């Protein structure tokens, strides 16, 4: 009974598209990336984010959007590193994991208040990123990708093997709800406002970075490191700074994730998850901060919908990703691929042309 109900396609699914569509509207035109100031439209989207869970007061929707918000925080940090500084990291899930485990260990073993553990998670992820990043960031391109990948795998092994600290494969249970000064975030709705509040704060922070000196420095490093150092930019240092910042974002996201799921186990932070986040950044569009948020919502929603089709879900998922990358090479929410528009126009006119009307 329950299963058959699950397999039906519901009209509700279409509503999930609405916030995505809203977000996709603010994603800038690829040729207008440089318009980096906040605009009136940003306020509309803020309103949409605040009202969305009240309009669709469905706990499944709330839960999905909570997850999407957490993934968006992760993708945002990675987007600064990948989309702006032009580097590659395949170890981002590890920092997410470090954040989650820091919160898990501090709250369950040492009875830390979650609010303190939240900041401690960002700090621990940042500190580890600093010591990892210093040697690793000397590498470029594929080598950097491989090194970060290796770091992610090592982190997983440590999680699984150090059973005393992390609970091994089973993980840690019973992490308390997030709470600030006695206010407990115990429903999906409250958690929605918590995660999206954190996301909005970090988004504004990132956007300020991008439109200031730091953003120009990052883009300069991405385009030409020689030219960047010729104007006095300390290339290794800015790379390290942004890597550490991305890790701190991931640490915050991990802490929220641990509190909301109330468990932390190694499977959640595997390579597959890293690829999932990288996919969000790429689908959303590199060099654009709205993209990762839209990408996070899209992928979270897509995976939820497809999970109903069980064994077909992965192939369908793959096909949809490929189609999206063909139609929106600069990221969803940007313009359709010009060539695709041209082809559609060509096909549309073909029939008329054949009939001799054109």
């Amino acid at each position: 009974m329950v299963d058959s109900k699950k397999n039906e396609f519901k009209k509700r699914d279409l509503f999930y598209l609405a916030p995505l569509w809203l977000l996709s509207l603010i994603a800038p035109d690829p040729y207008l990336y440089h318009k980096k100031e906040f605009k009136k439209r940003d306020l509309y989207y803020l309103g949409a984010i605040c009202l969305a869970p009240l309009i669709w007061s469905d706990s499944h929707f709330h839960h999905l959007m909570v997850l999407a918000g957490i993934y968006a925080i992760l993708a945002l940090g990675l987007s600064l590193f990948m989309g702006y500084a032009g580097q590659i990291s395949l170890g981002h899930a590890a920092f997410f994991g470090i954040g989650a485990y820091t919160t898990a260990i501090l709250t369950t073993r040492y009875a830390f208040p979650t609010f303190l553990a939240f900041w401690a998670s960002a700090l621990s992820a940042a500190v580890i990123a600093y010591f990892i990043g210093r040697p690793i960031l000397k590498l470029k391109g594929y080598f950097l990708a491989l090194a970060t990948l290796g770091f992610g795998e090592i982190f997983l092994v440590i999680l699984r093997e150090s059973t005393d600290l992390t609970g091994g494969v089973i993980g840690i249970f019973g992490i308390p709800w997030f709470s600030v000064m006695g206010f407990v975030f115990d429903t999906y709705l409250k958690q929605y406002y918590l995660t999206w509040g954190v996301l909005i704060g970090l988004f504004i922070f990132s956007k300020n970075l991008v439109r200031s000196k730091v953003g120009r420095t990052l883009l300069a490093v991405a385009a030409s490191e020689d030219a960047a150092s010729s104007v006095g930019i300390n290339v290794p240092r800015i790379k390290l700074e942004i890597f550490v910042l991305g890790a701190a974002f991931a640490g915050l996201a991990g802490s929220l994730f641990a509190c909301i799921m109330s468990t932390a186990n190694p499977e959640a932070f595997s390579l597959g998850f890293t690829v999932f986040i990288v996919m969000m950044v790429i689908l959303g569009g590199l060099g654009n901060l709205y993209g990762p948020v839209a990408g996070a919502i899209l992928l979270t929603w897509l995976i939820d919908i497809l999970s109903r089709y069980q064994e077909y879900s992965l192939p369908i998922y793959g096909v949809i990703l490929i189609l999206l990358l063909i139609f929106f090479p600069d990221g969803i929410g940007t313009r359709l691929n010009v060539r695709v528009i041209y082809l559609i126009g060509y096909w549309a006119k073909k029939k008329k042309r054949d009939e001799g009307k054109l």
Partner: protein
Amino acid sequence: MSLLSIEEITKEYDGIRALDRISLKVEKGSIKGLIGPNGAGKSTLFHLISGVEKPDSGKIYFKGREITSMESHEISALGMGRTFQTLQIWGNMTVVENIMAGMNRRLKGGLFSCGLWLPWIRRSEKEALMEAKEILNSLGLLGKWESMASQLPYGKQKLLELGRALAMKPELLLLDEPASGLTLTEMQQLSEQISQIRQEGVTAFVVEHHMGMVMEIADEIAVLHHGKLIAEGTPEAVRRDPQVIEAYLKGKRANA
């Protein structure tokens, strides 16, 4: 004291001596030209000065400080701007952002103050924008300040690269073949630009293939041939130097 002085620089690549005990001085407020046939070691010398590569022996002083073993960004931060032989503008930014990024070293602000958009960041961003527009105005690029740098024509991109180096407010400007690939009118504009820079008190060190332009703008010219300094002096003296004539003619004959 000269602004830049190079003492007995030697650089070898796999046993081939690209530069052989070169000593040069660039005086403050002057424009020095560096010419020589292909493969003479001009670009190598520039790489050594700007810190991209390190010399095997010898010392380089800038403003009286030894910079031989410094990183290239440290050298730039001391006040040495440069342009590149192969154009290196940042095509992923707008024209005005290219100039503002060039001002990087003069702008304050770290990760947190920028992220929190503190009042002084807001102020300095505004001032930087105004100043960048002034620089663009003097280069004649103000009309395109909002377009992406990659969309400019080649000649304008060359000018933009010069503007970016000027935005640093450098004391010494290294120009690596500024005229390569430019049309005659663009070259004319560039020479005017360089003499204007000089009036503002910037010292320039120019590597150039285009003899006419160097002869026109430089106060003093040094000639490199096979990694050796074969002549140094005023443009007229260098033009008449038999060794220089021979080096260039030989090069021409070999090419023909």
